[in-house]
């Protein structure tokens, strides 16, 4: 059971990828299947069940794209 959940405000993301360096369980990745309004691949999480809600990704994000919840 996931301990946390992250949501991405995709259209604000600039596709910089800093968040992907910070996730201790390595689930944050760039969604190369689509581009956002700015033309960037937005960050996303596919395996949300592994999220531990540590907020490292949100900590690393320069644009406040990520909201983190914890159960």
């Amino acid at each position, binding site marked *: 059971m996931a301990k*946390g959940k992250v949501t991405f405000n995709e259209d604000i993301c*600039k596709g910089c990828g*800093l968040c992907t360096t910070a996730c201790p369980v390595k689930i944050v990745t760039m969604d190369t299947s689509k581009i956002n309004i700015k033309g960037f691949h937005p960050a996303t999480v596919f395996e949300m069940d592994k999220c531990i809600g540590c907020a490292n990704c949100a900590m*690393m994000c*320069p644009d*406040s794209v990520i909201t983190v919840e914890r159960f």
Partner: protein
Amino acid sequence: MSVVFKKTSGLTEKETHYCPGCTHGIIHRLVGEVLEELDVLGETIGVAPVGCSVLAYDYFNCDMHEASHGRAPAVATGIKRVHPDKVVFTYQGDGDLASIGTAEIVHVAHRGEKITTIFVNNAIYGMTGGQMAPTTLIGQRATTAPLGRTAEHSGMPLRVSEMLATIDGAAYVERVSVDTPANIRKTKKAIKEAFQCQIDRKGFSIVEVLSTCPTNWGMTPIDSLKWLADNLIPYYPLGNFRRPGEVK
């Protein structure tokens, strides 16, 4: 389900103009979070410089004043002397503070002006396209040091925190970095301590934040974090140089 992390009300809704991966954005957020957590947003006046953060007046959710290049500490002095009970901060880059504005930053420290300076050091001039700054490392290339900076031509990079820590009026001087979540947490703690030093009227407070410039360093945002750790931190050691009450 509880929200443990969301965008701070210390920042406005406006999306920043910073390049993708530029860590100015992180530093802005930390300042916004600290002002929100200290519950002083309505009592705060910020002074934005000329540089990449020239548009910071659109991003911080408090009264803002746009200074001319290098003069933010003087503008902040004028504001603080008129409103001694308000929280006043400057947000400056290394071109702004360590080059044209050195007299101003030395003298707010010298006067023990009760303001807080957030000093973003990315070892280059960002807004104007990558020129060499006083903080540019030896060997680091810049548009005005095409073959890399040499000490013989333009001296050794300037360590501002160490310099200001020799001034008694500088009550709080700390250098931090935003290249990892752990360092970002330390940066937030330092920024909070700096603003608390001002609120407690102990004197001048400054936090030097090592930051990246992917565009002008010519690297990806992720490589920039690594370059910062491998090159800036060794030359600009992290840590506290002065705390209130300490006599150095």
